[in-house]
């Protein structure tokens, strides 16, 4: 379990690097001559190539190499960054992603086509600045192979010969590590080399020479020439001098250096590589950070949950035994620590939504290109933090909503001009925290939702009767019905009417809600309200018969008394009148077949999801309860009424009611009632 699969680790990491490169490219589209961005993109490509080769993704390495070379030219001011070039590299990104995900051997033709375009983009661009004088350029290399390199079939001389093909070389052997003759193992390579390589050689070409031995060897590449040059601009455009290496730019130089020179077995060294590499590379951006598998955090969360439960038992004990003051104070101390620990662990799982929002810029960019619209995406509140599992499950619904906004919402430029709007459509994605919830809104300034069309469609689907009066909100919620789409034409992006219902279901499974506002001609706003975490909810603890249950507090509207007379009167009809509306109710005691007598003071808990309300008759309301949600065992997965379980202060178990299921049940009952009436 704890052993991480190096290839999987590489995929995760490569995915992140690709994302960074993509962000860099998109930014670069606006600021074509930003050298920092160019460098960042180059470093990302370089990392991909290097680590791709390290983990056996040869197709990726060789493909990326070409993109890297292209960007290297940009970086050295040999070629200007052009929108065409950026577009080609963006499309190359998708190809790289495919190569990372699969073996990609059959995609060779696709890759070649992209490379051809890349070459065209490079050739088409005029060379603005002359190349720096070649005599100025060169590299100083210091290399040392692991002692058993020769046993593994590596011939250092061929490596040196290969270096010589790159340019004029001066090779000096370093013999200080060669032991006395008595201690010398003839098959060990104890000699190191210093090489001075003159000429305009790309660093990547030098590294290519060592591509197969890079993991184990000690290689330092230092630039001579431009580093000595006083021209500040030239220096900025040139590869970073080794004196201030960026770990991502030279993984080959940093990682092996941290390994001790003699390695008994090269395998363990390889196995450690993926674990060490992400930390090293993630570090410069995010400060000190550690990458931890999510399962370990879950495990930690479980342990903390147990601790909190045991602690509450201890504090019950301390309070009941009136005697011991010392026990009392210890118990209080532990209580404080446990609650702090829980808060700390909760925070560990939180991830800023920026990780999610970043992906959408590309999405909007592509949609704008495919549809011929001009769309700008702006985001704010990226620092809002949400539980990691929530983030992961939000991605698909958000993609769909943004597609909808771009495809259905924002109009074509000519329509926009005719409507007196700016040519560029605007989609705004924002996140903010409100209490225990995060609110994500997607706002577009398109033509809004046409109520008449929605109504016509709903009527044709038989969702509402022609003369039926429905509120505006109810009408807008119609778009979440399965198979409902008002787009006149079906495009590749959206309009097939699949998705909005899936969006709604996903959001509801996250215990969230979805609201739509729309002004015809001015645009629509979709707001998602989602709890910050799935691990803990505020719940209402209730008793039904002998069992205790938790109702998520977020859906509880109110609690009212069900007096004995009323209970008897409502025998024939299971609904009550609440503020001029009929609310059906379910007697949980009957539903759960408790076989107990009803309590004298029964209560009705009114729960609501969206516009539907249902009352739940319970025996007693115990109070609110901070609920750590535990999943039900797989053997209970066919019991739909419960969303999970939680452990109470006394160590007992309370089941958490699945409100959506209960409401569905209540509706079913209501329909039966109507049919009878």
């Amino acid at each position, binding site marked *: 379990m704890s052993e991480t699969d190096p290839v999987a680790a590489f995929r995760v990491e490569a995915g992140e690097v690709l994302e960074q490169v993509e962000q860099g490219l998109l930014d670069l589209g606006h600021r074509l001559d930003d050298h920092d961005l160019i460098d960042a993109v180059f470093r990302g490509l370089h990392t991909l190539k290097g680590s791709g080769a390290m983990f056996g993704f040869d197709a990726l390495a060789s493909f990326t190499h070409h993109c890297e070379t292209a960007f290297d030219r940009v970086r050295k001011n040999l070629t200007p960054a052009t929108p065409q070039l950026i577009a080609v590299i963006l499309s190359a990104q998708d190809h790289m992603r495919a190569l990372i995900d699969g073996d990609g051997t059959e995609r060779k033709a696709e890759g070649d086509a992209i490379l051809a375009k890349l070459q065209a983009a490079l050739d088409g661009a005029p060379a603005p600045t002359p190349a720096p004088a070649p005599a100025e350029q060169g590299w100083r290399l210091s290399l040392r192979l692991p002692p058993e390199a020769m046993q593994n079939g590596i011939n250092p001389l061929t490596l040196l010969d290969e270096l010589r093909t790159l340019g004029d070389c001066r090779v000096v052997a370093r013999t200080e590590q060669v032991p006395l003759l008595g201690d010398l193992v003839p098959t060990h390579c104890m000699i190191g080399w210093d090489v001075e390589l003159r000429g305009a050689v790309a660093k990547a070409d030098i590294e290519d020479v060592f591509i197969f031995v890079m993991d184990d060897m000690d290689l330092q590449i230092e630039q001579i020439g431009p580093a000595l040059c006083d021209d500040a601009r030239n220096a900025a455009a040139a590869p970073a001098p080794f004196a201030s290496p960026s770990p991502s730019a030279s993984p080959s130089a940093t990682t092996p250096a941290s390994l001790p020179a003699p390695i008994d077995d090269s395998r363990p060294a390889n196995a450690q590589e993926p674990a060490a590499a992400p930390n090293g590379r993630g570090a410069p951006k995010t400060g000190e950070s550690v990458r931890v598998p999510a399962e370990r955090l879950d495990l930690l969360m479980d342990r903390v949950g147990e601790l909190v439960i045991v602690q509450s038992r201890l504090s019950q004990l301390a309070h009941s035994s009136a005697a011991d003051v010392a026990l009392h104070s210890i118990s209080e101390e532990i209580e404080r620590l446990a609650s702090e620990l829980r808060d700390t662990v909760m925070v560990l799982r939180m991830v800023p939504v920026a990780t999610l929002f970043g992906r959408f810029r590309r999405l909007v960019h592509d949609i704008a290109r495919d549809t011929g619209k001009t769309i700008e995406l702006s985001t704010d509140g990226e620092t809002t933090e949400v539980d990691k599992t929530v983030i992961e499950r939000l991605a698909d619904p958000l993609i769909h909503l943004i597609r909808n906004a771009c495809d259905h919402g924002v109009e074509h430029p000519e329509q926009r001009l005719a409507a007196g709007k700016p040519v560029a459509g605007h989609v705004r994605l924002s996140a903010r925290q409100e209490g225990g919830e995060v609110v994500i809104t997607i706002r577009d300034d398109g033509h809004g939702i046409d109520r008449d069309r929605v109504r016509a469609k709903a009527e044709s689907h038989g969702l509402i009767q022609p003369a039926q009066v429905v509120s505006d909100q109810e009408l807008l919620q119609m778009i979440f019905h399965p198979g409902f789409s008002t787009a006149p034409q079906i495009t590749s992006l959206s309009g097939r009417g699949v998705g909005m219902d899936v969006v709604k279901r996903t959001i509801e499974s996250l215990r969230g809600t979805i609201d739509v506002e729309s002004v015809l001609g001015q645009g629509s706003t979709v707001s998602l309200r989602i709890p910050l975490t799935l691990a803990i909810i505020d719940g209402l603890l209730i008793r039904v018969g002998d069992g205790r249950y938790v109702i998520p507090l977020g859906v509880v509207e109110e609690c009212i008394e069900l007096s004995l007379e009323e209970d008897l009167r409502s025998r024939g009809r299971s609904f009550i009148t609440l503020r001029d509306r009929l609310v059906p109710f379910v007697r949980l005691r009957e*539903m759960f077949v408790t076989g107990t007598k009803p309590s004298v003071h029964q209560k009705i808990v009114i729960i609501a999801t969206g516009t539907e309300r249902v009352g739940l008759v319970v025996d007693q309301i115990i109070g609110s309860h901070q609920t750590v949600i535990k999943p039900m*065992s797989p053997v209970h997965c066919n019991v739909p*009424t419960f969303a999970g379980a939680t452990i109470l202060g006394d160590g*007992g178990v309370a089941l958490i009611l699945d409100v959506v299921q209960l409401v569905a049940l209540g509706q079913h009952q209501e329909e039966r009632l109507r049919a009878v009436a």
Partner: protein
Amino acid sequence: MTMEETSQTEWDEDGWLEVLTFDLQTEKFAVEAVLVREILDLLPETVVPGADRLVASVANFRGKIIPIADLRLAFGLPFADSTMDSRIVVVELDVDGVQTQIGIRTDKVHEVTTLHRDASEPPPTVGLRWRRDYIRELVRTPQGVIVLANLARIFDPLLGGRGTTPVLAPALL
């Protein structure tokens, strides 16, 4: 049926199998010792309304919610109140790669012992009140016959084969 292959242990080369033996009413049962995680005193249980009667309740086992199974139902044995000897045997089954813990209510736990293949027989086709596929082997010992239960098969309808196989033969319920 992947579950069966992974969680059932076979007789070793010499024909031995390590098991934990326990009583359900008057019958002596055994489960493979490698599946057993822990033996506990009875836990406070919470009834799950609507759940299958075989696993009608859950309990808090070290902060995890585990189902408590009553195998007496699977073998059509009469109910009886728990006694001082009643214990819960926590077993761990592999369900599609996920380790799932289940507590089994027993009337008495005996010992970890080894059974030999030569003393075992497949369940007979006649003279058996129980579903044959719930039994791996019947093993003769000096103290009487031990029923080596096929846990994977008993829980399979609840875990994987939902809706396809009847959970229990109606006659047994």
